[in-house]
C-alpha cells in the first residue's frame, strides 16, 4: 500500500510516497538521503537509529514512517546551529573523546540530549549509565560517553538548548 506522508524534519517540511511498511529510518536515509541516522541492529536494541519525534527520543527502526505523519522530527543533522558551530552535546563528545569508530555516536548524542532535558540538566554518573540502557557502543567502553554527557548537561543549560 502506497501512502503519502508529510512531516517536519529538522525544521523543514518534507513529504513523500512510502509503502505502509517503510520504517522511519528508511524514510530518512533512503528517501531524504539523510544518512546521519544509522541502523546498527534493526532489532530495537542498539539505539544507533535514535531520533527525536516531537521532542522525545525514539528508535526510528521501530517506527513506521506513516506513524510520524505530521510530527516534528529532529535528526543528528539538525543539531548544529551553524556549519562552524556544534551543539554542546556534540562538542562535549569531541572534547571528551567519546567516540572511536563513531557508528553509535548519532544515536548516543540524540539519546543523551533527551536524557539531559528529561532530568532538567541535572545528572549524576549512575543516572547517565542507567539511562544509556538503550544505546550500545562496541568501541569506547562507555566511560568517555558518560563523561561527555555529564559535561554537556551544564553546557546545554547555559547555552539555553
Amino acid at each position, binding site marked *: 500500500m502506497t501512502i503519502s506522508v508529510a512531516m517536519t524534519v529538522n525544521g523543514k517540511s518534507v513529504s513523500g510516497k512510502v509503502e*505502509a511498511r517503510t520504517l522511519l529510518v528508511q524514510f530518512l536515509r533512503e528517501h531524504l538521503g539523510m544518512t546521519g541516522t544509522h541502523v546498527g541492529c534493526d532489532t530495537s536494541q542498539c539505539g544507533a537509529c535514535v531520533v527525536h519525534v516531537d521532542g*522525545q*527520543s525514539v528508535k526510528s527502526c*521501530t517506527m513506521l514512517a*506513516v506513524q510520524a505523519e505530521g510530527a516534528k522530527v529532529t535528526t543528528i543533522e539538525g543539531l548544529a546551529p551553524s556549519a562552524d558551530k556544534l551543539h554542546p552535546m556534540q562538542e562535549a563528545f569531541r572534547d571528551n573523546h567519546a567516540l572511536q569508530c563513531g557508528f553509535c555516536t548519532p544515536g548516543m548524542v540524540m*539519546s543523551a540530549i*533527551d536524557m539531559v532535558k528529561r532530568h532538567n540538566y541535572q545528572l549524576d554518573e549512575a543516572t547517565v549509565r542507567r539511562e544509556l*540502557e*538503550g544505546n550500545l557502543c562496541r568501541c569506547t567502553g562507555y566511560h568517555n560517553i558518560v563523561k561527555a554527557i555529564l559535561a554537556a548537561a551544564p553546557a546545554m543549560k547555559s547555552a539555553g538548548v
Partner: protein
Amino acid sequence: MYDFAYHRPKSVADAVALLKGKEEARPMSGGMTLIPTLKQRLAKPSDVVDLGGVKELAGIKVEGGNVVIGAMTKHGDVATSADVKAHIPALADLAGHIGDPQVRNRGTIGGSVANADPAADYPAAVVALNATVTTNTGKHAADGFFKGLFETALGEGEIITSISFPKPEKAAYMKFPNPASRYAMVGVFVAKTASGVRVAVTGAGPSVFRVKAMEEALSKNFSSDAIKDIKVPATDLNSDIHGSAEYRAHLVGVMARRAVDKANK
C-alpha cells in the same frame, strides 16, 4: 516485513469497525513489539490499525479509589505521572524499569497487556493489584485475563481501552532483569489490600501466576520472614539459555522477599 494496508482512525468506534470482519487485521499501539514481529515475518497482517491517533485512549485519571490508565498511555508517562506516583508508586516504579528510555517513549500499557509476553512486567501488576481490563465490549477481571503464553481473554477484534488499578495499602515490584533485554527473568509484584495480600509472578512461567502459599502467609504477617521457607516448585517453569527452571524458582523466593521489604519501607 510484508506490506499491509495502514489505517489511522481517530476514535475507538472507527478502530473497531476497521478491525471487524478482517481476520488478518491487527491493532497497533506503540509498535515496540508488533514492528519487530513484522520485521521477522512472524506475522502477516492484511491491515494494521494504528491506535496512535485515538486521543480518547491516552491519559491517566484517578476515579474514587482507582487509578485508571488509558490503553495508549506510554510507559514513560506512567513512570512520571504525579497521580500514579502518589497513589500507586510501585506501578510508576515498574513502568520506569521497562526496557530503556526509547522503549518507554513508545510502548504502551494496552499493547503490553494485550501481548501477554511471559517476561513482560505489567501483567504482574495487573494480577497483583486485581486490576480490571476494560475493552470496547466489556470488562475482564485480572484473574481470568491472562490465559497462557501470549494468550489472553481478548476476543477477535476486541481492543483494550483502559486498565483500572485499585489503590493498595502497600505494594512493591522487584524484578531480576535479563541484563541484555531488561525483560523480567523473574519479577514479583506484591500488594497488600483491604481484602488481603496478592503475589503475582512474571517471567518465571509461560504466563503470570499467583503464589497462594505466600499470599496466605503474608496475610497473617506482612514481612519477608513470613515467606522465607516457602519454595515454588520448578515444574512447569521456563528453562532457556538465560536460566534454568530451578534458578527461576529460586529467584521467585528472593524477589518476593525483596518486594515485601521494599513495600514495608
